[in-house]
C-alpha cells in the first residue's frame, strides 16, 4: 500500500527533524508543510523542536526547497530533500553557491509528485474544497461535485522518467534506499514537437506562451535562478521588454530556458507553480537533451564534474559550422 509508506515517511521525517534540532546538530529545518489550498504544499522553516509536527510529506510536495538555501547563510541547515532537491543542492555546491559543511541533507525516496495543471484541466473552472489521496486514488470534493481520479495518471511526466528518486548525496535517507530505476530516458516525449516544421513549432510555442502573464513565478521557484539581478529586471541597458506581449513572452522564456542550460535539475517546480498551467518543462527538458547529447553531462549528479557552460573541449561537436562550398 503506497499510502502507508507515505505515512511512515512523514512520521520518520518529523522524528528525524526533532532529533536533529534537539541534539543541536542543525539550527533550522527546511521542509514541506500543508498548503493553504487543497493539493498544495508550502515550505516551512522550523527552529523549535516542538513545531516539527508541521512537517508533511505527500504527492503535493512539488516545490524545490533548495531555492531557500542562501549563499551567505552561516547557520547549520537540515533540508528535507527528494531526489531533485538533492540534485539542485549538489549543483549549487558545484557552482560555489553553497557550503557543503553547513547543510545536512535528509534524503527521502520520492515516488513522484502530482501534476496539478492536469487535474485542473480535468476539473475545469470549479473550485476544489477538499482533496485526499487514498489507495492510489485522488478523491476531490468540490462545491457541488465529487470526483475520483486514478493517481498514476496524474503523476508529473518528469517524475515518471526520473532516475534520481533519492538525492545523489545525503546524510540520512528515509524510505526506500534503493528505489527502482525506470528504463533509460530516451526523450520520447519530445519527438512529436521535434518532427514538426519550423512554422508549426513556432505556432505551438506561441500559443502556449501567449497565456503567460509575466508573474515570474517560474523564476522565483527555480533553484537555479539565484542571480541578484535578473536580466529581465535590468534597466541599464533594458535588454528585453517586460510586457505580456507574445514576442516579449517568447524571448523571456527562451532566455530563461537558455540560462538553465546544463543546470536544470528537472524538478518541475517552474511548471507546477505556473498559475496559467504552461508546461515550461518542455523547453527545459529539450535543453537537458541537448546537453546530454552534446556534452554528455547531467546536472547535480557529481560534485567533481564542472558545469558544461563553464568548461570546454577542443573536440566539441561543431557540425553546425557553415563551410565554404
Amino acid at each position, binding site marked *: 500500500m503506497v499510502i502507508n509508506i507515505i505515512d511512515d515517511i512523514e512520521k520518520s521525517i518529523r522524528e528525524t527533524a526533532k532529533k536533529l534540532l534537539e541534539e543541536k546538530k542543525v539550527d533550522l529545518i527546511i521542509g514541506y508543510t500543508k498548503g493553504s489550498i487543497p493539493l498544495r504544499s508550502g515550505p516551512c522553516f522550523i527552529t523549535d523542536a516542538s513545531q516539527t509536527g508541521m512537517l508533511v510529506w505527500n504527492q503535493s510536495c512539488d516545490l524545490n526547497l533548495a531555492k531557500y538555501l542562501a549563499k551567505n547563510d552561516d547557520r547549520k541547515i537540515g533540508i528535507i530533500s527528494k531526489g531533485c532537491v538533492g540534485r539542485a543542492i549538489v549543483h549549487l555546491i558545484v557552482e560555489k553557491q553553497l557550503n557543503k559543511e553547513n547543510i545536512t541533507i535528509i534524503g527521502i525516496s520520492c515516488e513522484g509528485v502530482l501534476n496539478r495543471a492536469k487535474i485542473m484541466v480535468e476539473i475545469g473552472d470549479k473550485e476544489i474544497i477538499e482533496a485526499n489521496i487514498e489507495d492510489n486514488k485522488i478523491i476531490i470534493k468540490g462545491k457541488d461535485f465529487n470526483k475520483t481520479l486514478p493517481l498514476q495518471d496524474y503523476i508529473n511526466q518528469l517524475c515518471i522518467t526520473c532516475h534520481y528518486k533519492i538525492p545523489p548525496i545525503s546524510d540520512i535517507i528515509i524510505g526506500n534506499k534503493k528505489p527502482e530505476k525506470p528504463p533509460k530516458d530516451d526523450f520520447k516525449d519530445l519527438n512529436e514537437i521535434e518532427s514538426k516544421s*519550423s512554422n508549426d*513549432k513556432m505556432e505551438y510555442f506561441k500559443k502556449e506562451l501567449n497565456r503567460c502573464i509575466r508573474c515570474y513565478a517560474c523564476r522565483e521557484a527555480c533553484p537555479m535562478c539565484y542571480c541578484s539581478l535578473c536580466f529581465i529586471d535590468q534597466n541599464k541597458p533594458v535588454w528585453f521588454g517586460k510586457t505580456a506581449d*507574445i*514576442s516579449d513572452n517568447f524571448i523571456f522564456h*527562451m*532566455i530563461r530556458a*537558455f540560462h538553465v*542550460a546544463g543546470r536544470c535539475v528537472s524538478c518541475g517546480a517552474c511548471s507546477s507553480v505556473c498559475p496559467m498551467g504552461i508546461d515550461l518543462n518542455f523547453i527545459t527538458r529539450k*535543453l537537458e537533451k541537448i546537453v546530454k547529447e552534446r556534452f554528455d553531462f547531467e546536472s547535480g549528479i557529481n560534485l567533481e564534474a564542472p558545469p558544461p557552460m563553464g568548461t570546454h573541449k577542443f573536440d*566539441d561537436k561543431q557540425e553546425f559550422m557553415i563551410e565554404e562550398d
Partner: protein
Amino acid sequence: MTDKSKEKSTEEWKPKIIAFLCNWCSYAGADLAGVSRIQYPPNIRVVRVPCTGRINPFFIIKSLAYGWDGILVSGCHPGDCHYISGNYIARRRFAILRDLMTFLGIEPERLNFTWVSAAEGERFAKIVRKTVENVKSVGPNKIFNKKW
C-alpha cells in the same frame, strides 16, 4: 499606398545580416577581403567584438527581435584564439542556443557560425556568400511581430 507596396514586392528582397566578427581573426579576415578587392554581397553589417567569447546570446536574440534577417558569428580557428579559449566557450554557447532556437521554431539557417582567420580573405567572401544564400532560403524575418 497600394502602388508603393506593389513596387516593393517587385523589388528583390535583400536580407540584412548582422555579423559579429572577432577583432583578431575574422575582422582582419574581412579587412583582407576588402583590401584584396574580393567581391562579396553587401548584405552584412559588421559589429567588431574583442573575441567571440564576448558575444552575449542576448546580442543574437535582440538582433532577431529588432528584425535582422540573419546572424553571422565568426571567430578564430580552434587553437588560435587571442584569449586562449574564448572561441571554444562561444562554440558551446552557440551550439546550445542554436539547438534551442531550432526547437522553438526559429529557422536554423538564420544562425550561422564559422571560423575565419586573418589570412583567409577569400574564405571570408565565400562564407558571406554562403550565409546570404542560407538566409535567402528562409525569407524575411517575421518571428517577432512587435516593433520597438
